[in-house]
């Protein structure tokens, strides 16, 4: 056999080439399969667009998620919306063919493409599914399906029917592509977000120019005790715009129904109000109850000064010196202030006793009962009858009397303790002096 000359490693070129081939062929095929295995899912994934794994293709989103306004859609927002989560696609509302890459096919009339939905058509479009009880049952058996019929009774729905497209339609409050269930804190209609959503139009003076209604509701509401309870204290049961005005059937409550609306929560105030003379009087004057004194949007925490005849009182808006209402107001105010003062007096002496070291927990607890009575009295004033108010005030005064006595007893106990301390200190000083003298005497002889 013809052999070439040996190379430096002692092997000839043919042998080396053969060895290289076999060994390195193995390496190359190994690396290639790895690369393929790694690349394949990535490449395949790219072809899927932003759908979930295994979900139906959505070519609409593939293009529109790359575009800017007005055709752009935020793919992340859409896919976390409740519609996308339930498997609905763009075609569910807009028609078209979401499986085709071809624009003319995807957005063709053959596929039923509707394009941009006209504002006036939106409620009917949403209602196609949301008013179909049988259809909605398949998603959530207990969800309401009367939103469209309610909307038609609302100010927004009635004006839309007359051709005004400035009013709110479904997408103005719920958004179009980012719809979340109302109990999702991110939703534009979650209780803490409702007022801001309404304010988008209703606080915009320019937008609301033609309607000639105020646009300060949100600003007033933001100063109110309800706003504080909802946004600051975090109590989602506190009222927001939709609580009093309704959501889909939104309309301001009529004069006769304001009291009913407030009393869904404030029952006792309503019951006491109904038992008094104001109910008949306000109805006769066609004046809405509750908001005459408390206003509607900027409701503040009520104070005792609101009731009475002094500065800042509301009663004097209608009543003047000499009429029975004026006298009643003055009497009720005096009653409330008296109980409030007595509670303050008891609280002061009990705090002093506590600071002096006497245990007054029991009395401080009892004082809470008087505070409860004051709260009840402040509700009873809605009857505008001094005798009714006085019942609670007297109950409270009985309590404050006993707590004040307890406070006096505690101060007396403190004094007794200090006297006892003084006595024992005197005895101790006696002993100290005697001991000192004794020691001095004992050690005098030693010149100590």
């Amino acid at each position, binding site marked *: 056999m013809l052999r070439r000359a040996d190379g430096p490693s002692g092997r000839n070129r043919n042998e080396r080439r053969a060895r290289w081939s076999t060994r390195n062929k193995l390496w190359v095929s190994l690396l290639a399969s790895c690369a393929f295995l790694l690349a394949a899912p990535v490449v395949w994934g790219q072809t899927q667009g932003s759908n979930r794994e295994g979900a139906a293709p959505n070519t609409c989103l593939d293009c529109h998620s790359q575009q800017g306004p007005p055709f752009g859609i935020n793919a992340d927002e859409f896919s976390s919306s409740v519609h996308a989560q339930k498997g609905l696609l763009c075609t569910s509302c807009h028609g078209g063919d979401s499986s085709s890459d071809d624009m003319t096919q995807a957005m063709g009339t053959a596929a039923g493409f509707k394009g941009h939905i006209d504002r006036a058509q939106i409620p009917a479009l949403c209602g196609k599914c949301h008013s179909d009880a049988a259809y909605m049952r398949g998603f959530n058996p207990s969800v309401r399906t009367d939103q469209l019929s309610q909307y038609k009774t609302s100010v927004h729905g009635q004006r839309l029917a007359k051709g005004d497209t400035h009013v709110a339609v479904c997408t103005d409050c719920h958004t179009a592509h980012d719809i979340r269930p109302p109990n999702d804190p991110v939703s534009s209609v979650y209780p803490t977000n409702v007022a801001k959503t309404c304010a988008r139009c209703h606080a915009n003076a320019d937008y609301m120019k033609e309607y000639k209604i105020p646009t300060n509701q949100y600003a007033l509401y933001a100063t109110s005790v309800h706003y504080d309870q909802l946004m600051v204290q975090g*109590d989602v*049961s*506190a009222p927001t715009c939709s609580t009093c005005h309704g959501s889909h059937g939104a309309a301001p409550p009529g004069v006769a129904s304001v009291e009913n609306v407030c009393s*869904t*929560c*404030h*029952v*006792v105030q309503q019951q006491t109000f109904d038992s008094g003379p104001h109910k008949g009087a306000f109805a006769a004057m066609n004046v809405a109850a509750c908001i005459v004194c408390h206003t509607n949007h900027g409701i503040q925490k009520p104070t005792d000064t609101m009731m009475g005849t002094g500065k800042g009182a509301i009663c004097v808006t209608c009543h003047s010196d000499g009429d029975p209402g004026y006298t009643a107001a003055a009497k009720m105010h005096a009653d409330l202030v008296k109980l409030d003062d007595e509670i303050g007096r008891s609280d002061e002496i009990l705090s002093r006793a506590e600071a002096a070291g006497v245990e007054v*927990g029991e009395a401080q*607890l009892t004082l809470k009962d008087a505070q*409860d009575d004051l*709260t009840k009295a402040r*509700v009873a004033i809605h009857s505008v009858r001094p005798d009714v108010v006085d019942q609670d005030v007297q109950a409270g005064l009985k309590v404050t009397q006993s707590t004040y006595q307890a406070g006096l007893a505690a101060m007396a106990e403190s004094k007794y303790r200090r006297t*006892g301390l003084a*006595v*024992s200190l*005197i*005895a*101790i000083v*006696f*002993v100290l*002096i*005697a*001991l000192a*003298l*004794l020691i001095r*005497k*004992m*050690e*005098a*002889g*030693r010149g100590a």
Partner: protein
Amino acid sequence: MSDQSAFAQDQPERRHALRIFLGTGVAASLASFLYPVLRYIIPPKTVEQTTGNVLAAHVGDLKPNTGKIFRFGNRPALLVLTADGKYHAISAVCTHLNCTVQYRSDLHAVWCACHNGMYTVDGANISGPPPRPLEEYDVILKGNDIYARRRENA
């Protein structure tokens, strides 16, 4: 020893006076220490209030379908006797804004006057603003007495 005897011989009257002075002082101081101790040892008449078993009411205090507020520890609690003759004891501090709840015979439910919150007689919050149920207590009948006791958590 020597200074003591010298001391004793020198001024017997002054030493005597001093001893009396010291004796009185010591006796007075000891009395001021012992008097409180002796008063302390004698048990007082009032029985202490615990949250172990709290006496809520006596049998016969409540008519069927009525409720009564009683003190449990340092908070109010509600004892209800329902129409079927069962006693229920729950905390009376509303979980919304801490008003004291009451039993409504007409509604057969527990109601909070402040914002119209409603609970069942077992404390479950069923309507209105309250976000959580009221704490339930165990009811123990001993003879004529009805006791409420906090439930031990596992």
